[in-house]
Protein backbone atom coordinates (compact mmCIF):
# COMPACT_ATOMS: atom_id res chain seq x y z
CA UNK A 1 0.00 0.00 0.00
CA UNK A 2 1.16 3.49 -0.80
CA UNK A 3 0.24 4.63 2.69
CA UNK A 4 2.68 2.29 4.37
CA UNK A 5 5.53 3.26 2.07
CA UNK A 6 5.33 6.88 3.21
CA UNK A 7 7.67 8.35 5.75
CA UNK A 8 6.13 8.71 9.19
CA UNK A 9 6.83 12.46 9.18
CA UNK A 10 4.99 12.92 5.89
CA UNK A 11 2.84 15.98 6.46
CA UNK A 12 0.10 17.03 4.11
CA UNK A 13 -0.18 20.49 5.67
CA UNK A 14 2.63 22.49 7.22
CA UNK A 15 1.99 25.90 8.72
CA UNK A 16 4.86 27.93 10.10
CA UNK A 17 5.09 31.40 11.58
CA UNK A 18 1.44 32.19 10.89
CA UNK A 19 0.36 35.69 11.88
CA UNK A 20 -3.11 37.05 11.38
CA UNK A 21 -4.97 40.07 12.71
CA UNK A 22 -8.66 40.82 12.52
CA UNK A 23 -8.96 44.56 12.99
CA UNK A 24 -7.18 45.31 16.25
CA UNK A 25 -7.48 41.76 17.53
CA UNK A 26 -4.48 39.50 17.08
CA UNK A 27 -5.80 36.04 16.18
CA UNK A 28 -2.55 34.16 15.43
CA UNK A 29 0.88 35.17 16.58
CA UNK A 30 3.47 32.84 15.13
CA UNK A 31 1.43 29.65 14.93
CA UNK A 32 3.11 26.39 13.80
CA UNK A 33 0.94 23.41 12.91
CA UNK A 34 1.67 20.20 10.99
CA UNK A 35 -1.04 17.82 9.82
CA UNK A 36 0.14 14.23 9.16
CA UNK A 37 -1.10 12.48 6.04
CA UNK A 38 -3.71 9.77 6.31
CA UNK A 39 -4.71 10.65 9.88
CA UNK A 40 -7.61 12.36 11.59
CA UNK A 41 -6.24 15.48 13.24
CA UNK A 42 -8.34 17.68 15.47
CA UNK A 43 -7.86 21.35 16.21
CA UNK A 44 -9.49 22.22 19.51
CA UNK A 45 -9.73 25.36 21.55
CA UNK A 46 -12.22 27.68 23.22
CA UNK A 47 -14.70 29.62 21.10
CA UNK A 48 -13.21 32.69 19.51
CA UNK A 49 -9.61 31.43 19.31
CA UNK A 50 -9.76 31.40 15.53
CA UNK A 51 -10.10 27.67 14.86
CA UNK A 52 -12.45 28.22 11.94
CA UNK A 53 -10.24 31.07 10.72
CA UNK A 54 -7.31 28.65 10.72
CA UNK A 55 -9.33 26.25 8.56
CA UNK A 56 -10.17 29.08 6.20
CA UNK A 57 -6.52 30.08 5.98
CA UNK A 58 -5.57 26.48 5.11
CA UNK A 59 -8.12 26.47 2.29
CA UNK A 60 -7.24 29.91 0.98
CA UNK A 61 -10.55 31.55 1.89
CA UNK A 62 -8.74 33.96 4.21
CA UNK A 63 -5.32 35.46 3.54
CA UNK A 64 -2.92 35.57 6.52
CA UNK A 65 -0.72 38.59 7.25
CA UNK A 66 2.45 36.53 7.42
CA UNK A 67 3.62 32.94 7.45
CA UNK A 68 3.81 29.91 5.23
CA UNK A 69 0.83 27.63 4.66
CA UNK A 70 1.97 24.60 2.68
CA UNK A 71 -0.81 22.29 1.53
CA UNK A 72 0.50 19.34 -0.47
CA UNK A 73 3.71 21.31 -0.97
CA UNK A 74 2.00 24.43 -2.33
CA UNK A 75 2.07 27.75 -0.48
CA UNK A 76 -1.65 28.56 -0.39
CA UNK A 77 -1.53 32.34 0.26
CA UNK A 78 0.73 32.82 -2.79
CA UNK A 79 -1.32 30.77 -5.24
CA UNK A 80 -3.10 32.39 -8.17
CA UNK A 81 -6.89 31.99 -8.29
CA UNK A 82 -6.65 29.28 -10.94
CA UNK A 83 -3.99 27.33 -9.03
CA UNK A 84 -6.02 27.65 -5.84
CA UNK A 85 -9.12 26.30 -7.57
CA UNK A 86 -7.07 23.39 -8.95
CA UNK A 87 -5.84 22.63 -5.43
CA UNK A 88 -9.36 22.89 -4.06
CA UNK A 89 -10.52 20.10 -6.34
CA UNK A 90 -8.45 17.87 -4.05
CA UNK A 91 -10.07 19.32 -0.93
CA UNK A 92 -13.44 18.87 0.67
CA UNK A 93 -14.83 21.35 3.16
CA UNK A 94 -17.79 20.53 5.39
CA UNK A 95 -19.37 23.76 6.57
CA UNK A 96 -20.92 24.03 10.00
CA UNK A 97 -24.41 24.51 8.57
CA UNK A 98 -23.81 22.25 5.57
CA UNK A 99 -24.11 25.15 3.08
CA UNK A 100 -26.45 23.10 0.89
CA UNK A 101 -28.00 24.89 -2.08
CA UNK A 102 -31.52 25.53 -0.87
CA UNK A 103 -33.15 25.55 -4.31
CA UNK A 104 -31.67 22.18 -5.31
CA UNK A 105 -32.80 18.74 -4.13
CA UNK A 106 -30.49 16.43 -2.19
CA UNK A 107 -29.65 14.60 -5.42
CA UNK A 108 -28.83 17.80 -7.32
CA UNK A 109 -26.76 19.09 -4.41
CA UNK A 110 -24.57 16.01 -4.42
CA UNK A 111 -24.39 15.96 -8.22
CA UNK A 112 -23.40 19.65 -8.36
CA UNK A 113 -19.57 19.24 -8.27
CA UNK A 114 -19.77 16.43 -10.87
CA UNK A 115 -21.85 18.55 -13.21
CA UNK A 116 -19.49 21.51 -12.81
CA UNK A 117 -16.18 19.68 -13.19
CA UNK A 118 -16.90 16.66 -15.35
CA UNK A 119 -18.85 15.77 -18.46
CA UNK A 120 -20.03 12.39 -17.25
CA UNK A 121 -23.20 10.92 -18.76
CA UNK A 122 -26.27 11.21 -16.56
CA UNK A 123 -26.39 7.45 -15.87
CA UNK A 124 -22.90 7.56 -14.37
CA UNK A 125 -23.65 10.73 -12.38
CA UNK A 126 -26.68 8.96 -10.98
CA UNK A 127 -24.64 5.95 -9.93
CA UNK A 128 -21.94 8.03 -8.25
CA UNK A 129 -24.47 10.22 -6.43
CA UNK A 130 -26.48 7.27 -5.16
CA UNK A 131 -23.30 5.51 -4.03
CA UNK A 132 -22.16 8.53 -2.04
CA UNK A 133 -25.62 8.94 -0.54
CA UNK A 134 -25.54 5.26 0.36
CA UNK A 135 -22.23 5.83 2.15
CA UNK A 136 -23.86 8.41 4.43
CA UNK A 137 -27.04 6.35 4.74
CA UNK A 138 -29.34 8.76 2.92
CA UNK A 139 -29.92 7.10 -0.45
CA UNK A 140 -33.63 7.06 0.36
CA UNK A 141 -33.66 10.85 0.82
CA UNK A 142 -32.41 11.63 -2.69
CA UNK A 143 -35.46 13.60 -3.76
CA UNK A 144 -35.98 15.66 -0.59
CA UNK A 145 -35.29 19.39 -0.50
CA UNK A 146 -32.74 20.75 2.03
CA UNK A 147 -35.54 22.44 4.00
CA UNK A 148 -37.08 19.01 4.64
CA UNK A 149 -33.91 17.65 6.28
CA UNK A 150 -33.00 17.65 9.96
CA UNK A 151 -29.72 19.25 11.01
CA UNK A 152 -27.94 15.92 11.18
CA UNK A 153 -29.27 14.77 7.81
CA UNK A 154 -28.29 18.06 6.18
CA UNK A 155 -24.76 17.60 7.44
CA UNK A 156 -24.64 14.06 6.10
CA UNK A 157 -25.87 15.21 2.68
CA UNK A 158 -23.21 17.92 2.77
CA UNK A 159 -20.68 15.21 3.62
CA UNK A 160 -21.82 13.15 0.62
CA UNK A 161 -21.36 16.24 -1.56
CA UNK A 162 -17.93 16.82 -0.03
CA UNK A 163 -16.70 13.34 -0.94
CA UNK A 164 -18.34 13.14 -4.36
CA UNK A 165 -15.18 14.33 -6.14
CA UNK A 166 -13.00 11.95 -4.07
CA UNK A 167 -10.89 14.61 -2.31
CA UNK A 168 -7.59 13.84 -0.59
CA UNK A 169 -8.16 16.14 2.37
CA UNK A 170 -11.42 16.88 4.15
CA UNK A 171 -11.87 19.83 6.47
CA UNK A 172 -14.65 19.59 9.03
CA UNK A 173 -15.79 22.87 10.56
CA UNK A 174 -17.51 22.12 13.90
CA UNK A 175 -19.13 18.91 12.62
CA UNK A 176 -20.72 18.02 15.98
CA UNK A 177 -22.34 21.32 16.92
CA UNK A 178 -26.09 21.25 17.45
CA UNK A 179 -26.63 17.54 16.81
CA UNK A 180 -28.57 15.04 18.89
CA UNK A 181 -26.55 12.12 20.35
CA UNK A 182 -27.60 9.67 17.64
CA UNK A 183 -26.74 12.00 14.74
CA UNK A 184 -23.52 12.86 16.54
CA UNK A 185 -22.58 9.16 16.79
CA UNK A 186 -23.38 8.71 13.09
CA UNK A 187 -21.15 11.62 12.08
CA UNK A 188 -18.31 10.46 14.35
CA UNK A 189 -18.37 6.99 12.81
CA UNK A 190 -18.64 8.39 9.28
CA UNK A 191 -15.60 10.60 9.73
CA UNK A 192 -13.49 7.69 10.91
CA UNK A 193 -14.82 5.25 8.32
CA UNK A 194 -14.40 7.63 5.38
CA UNK A 195 -10.90 8.54 6.49
CA UNK A 196 -9.75 4.95 6.72
CA UNK A 197 -11.58 3.41 3.78
CA UNK A 198 -10.86 6.22 1.30
CA UNK A 199 -7.31 6.89 2.56
CA UNK A 200 -8.02 10.55 3.30
CA UNK A 201 -6.54 13.10 5.61
CA UNK A 202 -9.17 14.64 7.88
CA UNK A 203 -8.92 17.84 9.84
CA UNK A 204 -11.61 18.55 12.41
CA UNK A 205 -12.16 21.86 14.10
CA UNK A 206 -14.27 21.45 17.21
CA UNK A 207 -14.62 22.08 20.90
CA UNK A 208 -16.56 18.90 21.68
CA UNK A 209 -13.82 17.14 23.62
CA UNK A 210 -15.46 13.73 24.03
CA UNK A 211 -16.44 13.28 20.37
CA UNK A 212 -13.15 14.58 19.08
CA UNK A 213 -11.18 12.31 21.42
CA UNK A 214 -13.15 9.31 20.20
CA UNK A 215 -12.39 9.95 16.54
CA UNK A 216 -9.05 11.74 16.22
CA UNK A 217 -5.53 10.35 16.04
CA UNK A 218 -3.93 13.60 17.17
CA UNK A 219 -5.21 16.87 18.55
CA UNK A 220 -3.89 20.38 18.69
CA UNK A 221 -5.09 22.58 21.52
CA UNK A 222 -5.00 26.22 20.52
CA UNK A 223 -5.50 29.24 22.71
CA UNK A 224 -4.72 32.93 22.23
CA UNK A 225 -3.05 32.43 18.89
CA UNK A 226 -0.63 29.74 19.95
CA UNK A 227 -0.49 25.95 20.18
CA UNK A 228 -0.90 25.05 23.85
CA UNK A 229 -0.65 21.29 23.55
CA UNK A 230 -0.36 18.56 20.92
CA UNK A 231 -0.72 14.82 21.20
CA UNK A 232 -2.96 11.79 21.04
CA UNK A 233 -6.20 11.99 23.03
CA UNK A 234 -4.60 9.84 25.77
CA UNK A 235 -1.55 12.10 25.98
CA UNK A 236 -3.75 15.17 26.29
CA UNK A 237 -5.77 13.42 28.96
CA UNK A 238 -2.58 12.87 30.97
CA UNK A 239 -1.30 16.42 30.35
CA UNK A 240 -0.20 18.15 33.55
CA UNK A 241 -0.84 21.73 32.40
CA UNK A 242 -3.65 23.34 34.38
CA UNK A 243 -5.08 24.99 31.26
CA UNK A 244 -5.20 21.71 29.29
CA UNK A 245 -6.80 19.94 32.25
CA UNK A 246 -9.44 22.65 32.56
CA UNK A 247 -10.27 22.48 28.84
CA UNK A 248 -10.27 18.68 28.51
CA UNK A 249 -12.39 18.18 31.62
CA UNK A 250 -14.61 21.20 31.10
CA UNK A 251 -14.00 22.71 34.53
CA UNK A 252 -15.75 26.01 35.17
CA UNK A 253 -12.86 27.66 36.96
CA UNK A 254 -9.13 27.47 36.48
CA UNK A 255 -6.55 29.38 34.47
CA UNK A 256 -9.52 30.57 32.41
CA UNK A 257 -11.49 32.29 35.17
CA UNK A 258 -15.22 31.77 35.59
CA UNK A 259 -15.70 35.50 36.18
CA UNK A 260 -15.31 38.10 33.51
CA UNK A 261 -12.89 40.74 34.88
CA UNK A 262 -14.89 43.00 37.24
CA UNK A 263 -14.33 45.29 40.22
CA UNK A 264 -14.65 43.75 43.68
CA UNK A 265 -18.18 42.47 44.35
CA UNK A 266 -18.66 44.59 47.45
CA UNK A 267 -17.60 47.79 45.65
CA UNK A 268 -20.03 47.23 42.80
CA UNK A 269 -22.95 46.16 45.02
CA UNK A 270 -22.53 49.10 47.38
CA UNK A 271 -23.13 51.84 44.88
CA UNK A 272 -20.50 51.29 42.21
CA UNK A 273 -20.81 52.21 38.53
CA UNK A 274 -23.36 49.52 37.62
CA UNK A 275 -25.09 49.60 41.00
Amino acid at each position, binding site marked *: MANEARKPDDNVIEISGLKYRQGEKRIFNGLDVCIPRGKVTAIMGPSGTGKTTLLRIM*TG*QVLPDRGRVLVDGKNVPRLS*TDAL*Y*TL*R*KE*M*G*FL*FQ*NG*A*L*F*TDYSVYENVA*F*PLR*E*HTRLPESLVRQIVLMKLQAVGLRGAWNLMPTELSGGMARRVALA*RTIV*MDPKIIFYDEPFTGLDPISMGVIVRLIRKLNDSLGLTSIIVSHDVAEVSSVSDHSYLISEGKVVAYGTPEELEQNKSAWVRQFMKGLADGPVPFHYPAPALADQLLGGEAG
Partner: protein
Amino acid sequence: MKLLREAYYIVLGFLQMLGACGIFLLKLLRFTPQALGRPGLIFQQVFNVGAMSLVLIMVSGLFVGMVLGLQGFNTLNKFAATSALGTVVALSLLRELGPVVTALLFAGRAGTALTSEIGLMRATEQLAGMEMMAVDPIRRVVMPRFLAGVISMPLLVGIFNAVGVLGGYLVGVKLMHVDIASFWSQIHADVDLHEDFRSGVIKSVVFGVACTLIAVFEGFYAQPTAEGVSRATTRTVVNSALAVLALDYLLTAFMF
Protein backbone atom coordinates in the same frame (compact mmCIF):
# COMPACT_ATOMS: atom_id res chain seq x y z
CA MET B 1 -16.53 73.72 6.44
CA LYS B 2 -18.22 70.71 7.96
CA LEU B 3 -20.77 70.75 5.15
CA LEU B 4 -17.97 70.86 2.59
CA ARG B 5 -16.27 67.89 4.18
CA GLU B 6 -19.47 65.89 4.22
CA ALA B 7 -20.08 66.68 0.58
CA TYR B 8 -16.52 65.59 -0.14
CA TYR B 9 -17.10 62.23 1.53
CA ILE B 10 -20.40 61.71 -0.25
CA VAL B 11 -18.76 62.34 -3.63
CA LEU B 12 -15.83 60.13 -2.65
CA GLY B 13 -18.17 57.32 -1.59
CA PHE B 14 -20.08 57.64 -4.84
CA LEU B 15 -16.90 57.45 -6.91
CA GLN B 16 -15.67 54.46 -4.90
CA MET B 17 -18.92 52.61 -5.53
CA LEU B 18 -18.78 53.50 -9.23
CA GLY B 19 -15.25 52.13 -9.40
CA ALA B 20 -16.10 48.95 -7.51
CA CYS B 21 -19.13 48.42 -9.78
CA GLY B 22 -16.94 48.89 -12.85
CA ILE B 23 -14.36 46.38 -11.63
CA PHE B 24 -17.14 43.93 -10.85
CA LEU B 25 -18.51 44.39 -14.38
CA LEU B 26 -15.08 43.59 -15.83
CA LYS B 27 -14.86 40.46 -13.66
CA LEU B 28 -18.28 39.44 -14.94
CA LEU B 29 -17.49 40.06 -18.58
CA ARG B 30 -14.41 37.84 -18.30
CA PHE B 31 -16.79 34.89 -17.89
CA THR B 32 -18.99 35.74 -20.90
CA PRO B 33 -17.74 32.86 -23.11
CA GLN B 34 -18.19 30.24 -20.36
CA ALA B 35 -21.61 31.61 -19.44
CA LEU B 36 -22.80 31.55 -23.05
CA GLY B 37 -21.63 27.94 -23.22
CA ARG B 38 -24.36 27.00 -20.76
CA PRO B 39 -27.52 28.65 -22.12
CA GLY B 40 -29.72 26.49 -19.89
CA LEU B 41 -28.63 28.43 -16.82
CA ILE B 42 -29.35 31.74 -18.56
CA PHE B 43 -32.81 30.68 -19.77
CA GLN B 44 -33.73 29.54 -16.29
CA GLN B 45 -32.84 33.01 -14.99
CA VAL B 46 -34.62 34.75 -17.88
CA PHE B 47 -37.68 32.96 -16.59
CA ASN B 48 -37.03 34.01 -12.97
CA VAL B 49 -36.08 37.57 -13.79
CA GLY B 50 -38.07 38.34 -16.92
CA ALA B 51 -41.10 36.08 -17.14
CA MET B 52 -41.94 36.50 -13.47
CA SER B 53 -42.01 40.30 -13.99
CA LEU B 54 -44.40 40.03 -16.95
CA VAL B 55 -47.72 40.52 -15.16
CA LEU B 56 -46.47 43.58 -13.28
CA ILE B 57 -45.02 45.06 -16.47
CA MET B 58 -48.17 44.42 -18.52
CA VAL B 59 -50.60 45.80 -15.95
CA SER B 60 -48.42 48.86 -15.41
CA GLY B 61 -48.03 49.34 -19.16
CA LEU B 62 -51.78 49.21 -19.65
CA PHE B 63 -52.43 51.85 -17.00
CA VAL B 64 -49.63 54.15 -18.14
CA GLY B 65 -50.95 53.90 -21.71
CA MET B 66 -54.51 54.63 -20.55
CA VAL B 67 -53.39 57.67 -18.55
CA LEU B 68 -51.41 58.93 -21.52
CA GLY B 69 -54.48 58.46 -23.69
CA LEU B 70 -56.65 60.44 -21.28
CA GLN B 71 -54.19 63.25 -20.63
CA GLY B 72 -53.26 63.47 -24.29
CA PHE B 73 -56.88 63.60 -25.33
CA ASN B 74 -57.77 66.37 -22.86
CA THR B 75 -54.85 68.53 -23.95
CA LEU B 76 -55.14 67.86 -27.69
CA ASN B 77 -58.87 68.45 -27.54
CA LYS B 78 -58.23 72.12 -26.68
CA PHE B 79 -56.47 72.51 -30.01
CA ALA B 80 -58.84 70.22 -31.89
CA ALA B 81 -55.92 67.96 -32.64
CA THR B 82 -57.12 64.70 -31.14
CA SER B 83 -56.17 62.88 -34.33
CA ALA B 84 -52.55 63.17 -33.17
CA LEU B 85 -53.34 61.18 -30.02
CA GLY B 86 -51.75 57.99 -31.35
CA THR B 87 -48.49 59.79 -32.02
CA VAL B 88 -48.46 61.37 -28.56
CA VAL B 89 -49.02 58.04 -26.85
CA ALA B 90 -46.59 56.05 -28.98
CA LEU B 91 -43.76 58.58 -28.87
CA SER B 92 -44.05 59.17 -25.11
CA LEU B 93 -43.86 55.45 -24.55
CA LEU B 94 -41.13 54.60 -27.03
CA ARG B 95 -38.82 57.45 -26.20
CA GLU B 96 -39.25 57.89 -22.46
CA LEU B 97 -41.88 56.19 -20.40
CA GLY B 98 -41.43 52.67 -21.71
CA PRO B 99 -37.74 52.27 -20.87
CA VAL B 100 -37.79 54.41 -17.71
CA VAL B 101 -40.93 53.03 -16.05
CA THR B 102 -40.04 49.46 -16.99
CA ALA B 103 -36.54 49.90 -15.55
CA LEU B 104 -37.92 51.33 -12.30
CA LEU B 105 -40.43 48.48 -12.00
CA PHE B 106 -37.73 45.97 -12.94
CA ALA B 107 -35.49 47.28 -10.16
CA GLY B 108 -38.33 46.91 -7.69
CA ARG B 109 -39.47 43.47 -8.82
CA ALA B 110 -36.47 41.60 -10.26
CA GLY B 111 -33.57 43.67 -8.90
CA THR B 112 -34.58 43.21 -5.28
CA ALA B 113 -35.16 39.49 -5.86
CA LEU B 114 -31.67 39.13 -7.33
CA THR B 115 -30.02 41.09 -4.53
CA SER B 116 -31.74 39.23 -1.73
CA GLU B 117 -31.22 35.84 -3.39
CA ILE B 118 -27.48 36.33 -3.89
CA GLY B 119 -27.13 38.07 -0.52
CA LEU B 120 -28.82 35.18 1.25
CA MET B 121 -26.63 32.71 -0.58
CA ARG B 122 -23.69 34.68 0.78
CA ALA B 123 -25.16 34.75 4.30
CA THR B 124 -25.85 31.00 4.35
CA GLU B 125 -22.31 30.26 3.06
CA GLN B 126 -23.62 28.79 -0.20
CA LEU B 127 -21.24 31.02 -2.15
CA ALA B 128 -18.31 30.06 0.09
CA GLY B 129 -19.33 26.42 -0.34
CA MET B 130 -19.22 26.86 -4.10
CA GLU B 131 -15.78 28.44 -3.90
CA MET B 132 -14.60 25.47 -1.84
CA MET B 133 -15.88 23.14 -4.56
CA ALA B 134 -13.61 25.07 -6.94
CA VAL B 135 -16.59 26.67 -8.67
CA ASP B 136 -16.37 30.44 -9.11
CA PRO B 137 -19.70 31.88 -7.90
CA ILE B 138 -19.27 34.88 -10.19
CA ARG B 139 -19.30 32.52 -13.15
CA ARG B 140 -21.92 30.10 -11.86
CA VAL B 141 -24.35 32.33 -9.92
CA VAL B 142 -23.84 35.97 -10.86
CA MET B 143 -23.14 35.83 -14.59
CA PRO B 144 -26.27 33.91 -15.69
CA ARG B 145 -28.42 36.30 -13.65
CA PHE B 146 -26.67 39.34 -15.07
CA LEU B 147 -27.07 38.15 -18.67
CA ALA B 148 -30.69 37.22 -18.01
CA GLY B 149 -31.37 40.76 -16.77
CA VAL B 150 -29.69 42.31 -19.79
CA ILE B 151 -31.69 40.05 -22.15
CA SER B 152 -34.99 40.52 -20.32
CA MET B 153 -35.06 44.30 -20.05
CA PRO B 154 -35.43 45.16 -23.78
CA LEU B 155 -38.06 42.44 -24.14
CA LEU B 156 -39.99 43.76 -21.15
CA VAL B 157 -39.75 47.30 -22.52
CA GLY B 158 -41.12 46.07 -25.84
CA ILE B 159 -44.06 44.41 -24.12
CA PHE B 160 -44.65 47.47 -21.91
CA ASN B 161 -44.75 49.70 -24.99
CA ALA B 162 -47.09 47.40 -26.91
CA VAL B 163 -49.53 47.11 -24.04
CA GLY B 164 -49.21 50.85 -23.38
CA VAL B 165 -50.19 51.74 -26.93
CA LEU B 166 -53.09 49.34 -26.59
CA GLY B 167 -54.13 51.16 -23.38
CA GLY B 168 -53.97 54.49 -25.19
CA TYR B 169 -56.05 53.00 -28.00
CA LEU B 170 -58.69 51.73 -25.58
CA VAL B 171 -59.14 55.09 -23.89
CA GLY B 172 -58.68 57.24 -27.00
CA VAL B 173 -60.62 55.27 -29.58
CA LYS B 174 -63.09 53.21 -27.58
CA LEU B 175 -63.85 55.66 -24.77
CA MET B 176 -63.24 59.12 -26.25
CA HIS B 177 -64.17 58.18 -29.83
CA VAL B 178 -61.06 59.40 -31.55
CA ASP B 179 -61.07 58.24 -35.15
CA ILE B 180 -59.54 54.78 -35.26
CA ALA B 181 -57.94 55.27 -38.66
CA SER B 182 -56.20 58.50 -37.73
CA PHE B 183 -55.03 57.00 -34.40
CA TRP B 184 -53.10 54.19 -36.10
CA SER B 185 -52.10 56.02 -39.30
CA GLN B 186 -50.60 58.91 -37.30
CA ILE B 187 -48.47 56.42 -35.37
CA HIS B 188 -47.48 54.82 -38.64
CA ALA B 189 -46.53 58.15 -40.17
CA ASP B 190 -44.79 59.86 -37.28
CA VAL B 191 -42.87 57.18 -35.43
CA ASP B 192 -39.42 56.85 -36.92
CA LEU B 193 -37.76 53.47 -36.81
CA HIS B 194 -34.27 54.85 -36.41
CA GLU B 195 -34.70 57.88 -34.23
CA ASP B 196 -37.52 56.76 -31.95
CA PHE B 197 -37.50 52.99 -31.92
CA ARG B 198 -33.74 52.55 -31.88
CA SER B 199 -33.20 55.12 -29.15
CA GLY B 200 -35.76 53.31 -27.02
CA VAL B 201 -33.97 50.03 -27.54
CA ILE B 202 -30.59 51.56 -26.70
CA LYS B 203 -32.04 53.03 -23.53
CA SER B 204 -33.57 49.73 -22.50
CA VAL B 205 -30.30 47.86 -23.00
CA VAL B 206 -28.34 50.47 -21.02
CA PHE B 207 -30.93 50.40 -18.20
CA GLY B 208 -30.87 46.61 -18.26
CA VAL B 209 -27.10 46.58 -17.76
CA ALA B 210 -27.25 49.25 -15.05
CA CYS B 211 -30.14 47.82 -13.03
CA THR B 212 -28.96 44.21 -13.15
CA LEU B 213 -25.36 45.14 -12.44
CA ILE B 214 -26.40 47.15 -9.37
CA ALA B 215 -28.64 44.31 -8.16
CA VAL B 216 -26.05 41.53 -8.46
CA PHE B 217 -23.25 43.78 -7.16
CA GLU B 218 -25.21 44.72 -4.04
CA GLY B 219 -26.18 41.09 -3.46
CA PHE B 220 -22.69 39.73 -3.95
CA TYR B 221 -21.08 42.22 -1.58
CA ALA B 222 -23.93 42.32 0.97
CA GLN B 223 -23.01 41.99 4.63
CA PRO B 224 -23.76 38.33 5.41
CA THR B 225 -26.43 39.12 8.01
CA ALA B 226 -30.20 39.61 7.90
CA GLU B 227 -29.76 43.35 8.32
CA GLY B 228 -26.99 43.46 5.72
CA VAL B 229 -29.15 41.76 3.10
CA SER B 230 -32.11 44.05 3.79
CA ARG B 231 -29.88 47.11 3.49
CA ALA B 232 -28.42 45.83 0.25
CA THR B 233 -31.93 45.29 -1.13
CA THR B 234 -32.88 48.85 -0.25
CA ARG B 235 -29.71 50.18 -1.86
CA THR B 236 -30.54 48.25 -5.03
CA VAL B 237 -33.84 50.06 -5.46
CA VAL B 238 -32.50 53.50 -4.54
CA ASN B 239 -29.33 53.27 -6.62
CA SER B 240 -31.11 51.72 -9.60
CA ALA B 241 -33.73 54.47 -9.61
CA LEU B 242 -31.08 57.19 -9.44
CA ALA B 243 -28.93 55.50 -12.08
CA VAL B 244 -31.86 55.06 -14.47
CA LEU B 245 -33.00 58.67 -14.18
CA ALA B 246 -29.48 60.09 -14.51
CA LEU B 247 -28.62 57.82 -17.45
CA ASP B 248 -31.94 58.69 -19.07
CA TYR B 249 -31.05 62.36 -19.09
CA LEU B 250 -27.59 61.68 -20.50
CA LEU B 251 -28.87 59.35 -23.21
CA THR B 252 -31.69 61.72 -24.17
CA ALA B 253 -29.26 64.62 -24.39
CA PHE B 254 -26.96 62.64 -26.67
CA MET B 255 -29.53 60.99 -28.89
CA PHE B 256 -32.15 63.66 -29.62
